[in-house]
């Protein structure tokens, strides 16, 4: 059996002296090439978990490994293996799309030719090439979301983390992003996805883990089975309850 790309054991994250931990003894494994959906209501701990796995946040306790590398001790090496699509539009809005990509690509150590080649290919693939010399602040939300993903794919990472990648955009842009994500997963990239769109998770994910109160509360092991897709919303509500989460 191949080693998991992501392995989490007994992970705990407590912010300051707050009473309940944001992540509370989480266990998780993500296999190579898998498209894992991490679903949960607001405040379930999804973004915190991604923050720890990408080395942005330090865990309070437990272990988090990416391809066998500890995300705290081997942070620099982990960063070469991963790409993050943050929940916010993580772009410099007064720079053009090309300038943003050149900057992020150079931080990843990409040579000029390779960087240009990959940036142009991804811009073309996402329909952004024609307007790539415009400042990003003049773009629509959908275009900015697409570029937000392109910036994470620039260095061709084997593992990608998506934190609500399609929030607040139009149907066309969402469809284009889903298609792109399916493509990169089909090419072998391991994807860890979080979001609130159960329908999107049904379409994209090969497996879904449901989180609540910082813990793993359930799982749909094989999303390709028809009966699982139909049950996802019911399962979600059964596991996380009907109480509003504001």
């Amino acid at each position, binding site marked *: 059996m191949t080693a998991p790309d992501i392995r989490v054991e007994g992970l705990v994250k407590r*912010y300051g002296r707050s009473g309940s931990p944001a992540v509370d003894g989480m266990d998780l494994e993500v296999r190579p090439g898998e498209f894992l959906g991490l679903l949960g209501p607001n405040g379930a701990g999804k973004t915190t978990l991604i*923050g720890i796995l*990408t*080395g*942005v*946040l*330090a865990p309070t306790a437990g272990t988090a490994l990416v391809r066998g590398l500890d995300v705290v001790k081997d942070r*620099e090496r982990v*960063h*070469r293996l*991963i*790409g*993050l699509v*943050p*929940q*916010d*539009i*993580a*772009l*410099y*809005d*007064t*720079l053009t799309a090309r*300038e943003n990509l*050149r*900057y*992020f690509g*150079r*931080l*990843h*150590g990409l040579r000029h030719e390779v960087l240009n080649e990959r940036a142009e290919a991804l811009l073309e693939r996402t329909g952004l090439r024609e307007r790539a010399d415009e*400042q990003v602040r003049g773009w629509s939300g959908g275009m900015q979301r697409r570029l937000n993903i392109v*910036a*994470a794919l620039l260095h061709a990472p084997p593992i990608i983390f998506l934190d609500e990648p399609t929030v607040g955009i139009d149907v066309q842009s969402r469809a284009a992003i889903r298609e792109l994500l399916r493509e990169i997963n089909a090419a072998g990239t391991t994807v860890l996805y979080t979001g609130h769109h159960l329908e999107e998770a049904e379409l994209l994910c090969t497996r879904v883990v449901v989180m609540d109160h910082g813990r793993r509360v359930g799982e749909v092991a094989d999303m390709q089975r028809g009966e699982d897709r139909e049950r996802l919303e019911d399962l979600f509500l059964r596991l996380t309850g009907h109480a509003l989460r504001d």
Partner: protein
Amino acid sequence: MLQRIRAHAHKELLLLLRDRTGLLLVFAMPLLLVTVMAVVQDAPFRDFSDRQVRVLFQDLDDGPVGAAIRQGLEATGSFTITDGRSLSEAELRDRVRSGRHQVGVVVPANASEVVAAGSAHAMALLFDPLTGDSTAANVPDSARVRMVVDPTVKHMFRDLVRGSLQRILAGIGSERLLADMRARIEALTGDTLPALDLRRPLVGVAQELAAGELHGGRVAADSTAHNVPAWTIFAMFFTVVLLAGNMVKERTSGCMVRLLTMPGGAAERIVGRIAAYLLVCLAQLVLLLGAGLALLPLLGLQALDPGPPAMLPLLLAAALTVGLAATAFGTFIGSVCRTQQQSAILGSTTVVLLSAIGGIWVPLYIMPQAMQAVGRLSPLHWSMEAFNTVLLRRGDLAELAVHLVPLLLFAGVCLLLSVVAERVVSSR
């Protein structure tokens, strides 16, 4: 690592170039400030040889003493004299009170007679001790030269007029005494004595600067020499507002989260940012030195004297160190502020405050002692001293280092605190 540092620096410069308001803030505003402040402060900086004190002169004596006083005042070159002989006392007072003239000088009608009488009394004491009156000559109040002063006139101007009058009157008295004495001796001996010129002092006064050239009697710290380095320093430190603002925006926009998942760390980001803003500081130096050399003389101000070419490396060292201190301070402000509003207010307020107490607006030496002590703690004062050491004192590297070392320490502390703050943010 170098590629990443270059990437950070390039990105910072691009962000700055796209920010038109920011460009106005770091380039146009200092240019405007240096021009306006140099013109406004030109008068206070000029020495008194520029005929600044307007004197309304009323000679009621119409004799040799009145003429000698007027001649003496004119000879100083410090006064613009208007004749007020035809005015009444009330009219003279009104003209001074209205500010048209800063000082009125009234020579009494009997001034020449009083001087002659005083001298005669002294001669009697010297040459006829047995028959002469040994009591001091009684000079009536009406015989005194009076000064009428505009209440708004600074003390130093009043002192200048009073000092000049006292010197002239002493000279007139001495000359009269000497002339009478000579006449009495000639009468006693039958000889003809040579005339003595008392206006040439036996011991003179020479003025020189501790360093640099003396420009036609002007002191070196003229308005240009003060304002060009002062506002260059202010401009460099004011980049704090942009730098800190961009840092906070980076953090709150989500870009920082992306950067934290990329190779390289806080140190590389900080070095890249410092490199970019050092270039901005050097551009500010060139712009404002250029204004001092070419623009200010067009407005009738003294041109900046940058010194011999040999001073250029020292000027560059001073500018880079001041730029480093300013950039490090901006990095610190950007690290500790949570919103752009916070960084803008904290950055601009601290820079304006540190510049005010540090002698940027007005030189430290004219402030009260207590403020001078406080001002010496300001990094902008150390910066000013560094520039003055190069531009005015023509100091060497050792003298410059005295001011650069505290700036480097200040930069080091700011950067250390920034790295700690960024690590705290990234490890939360």
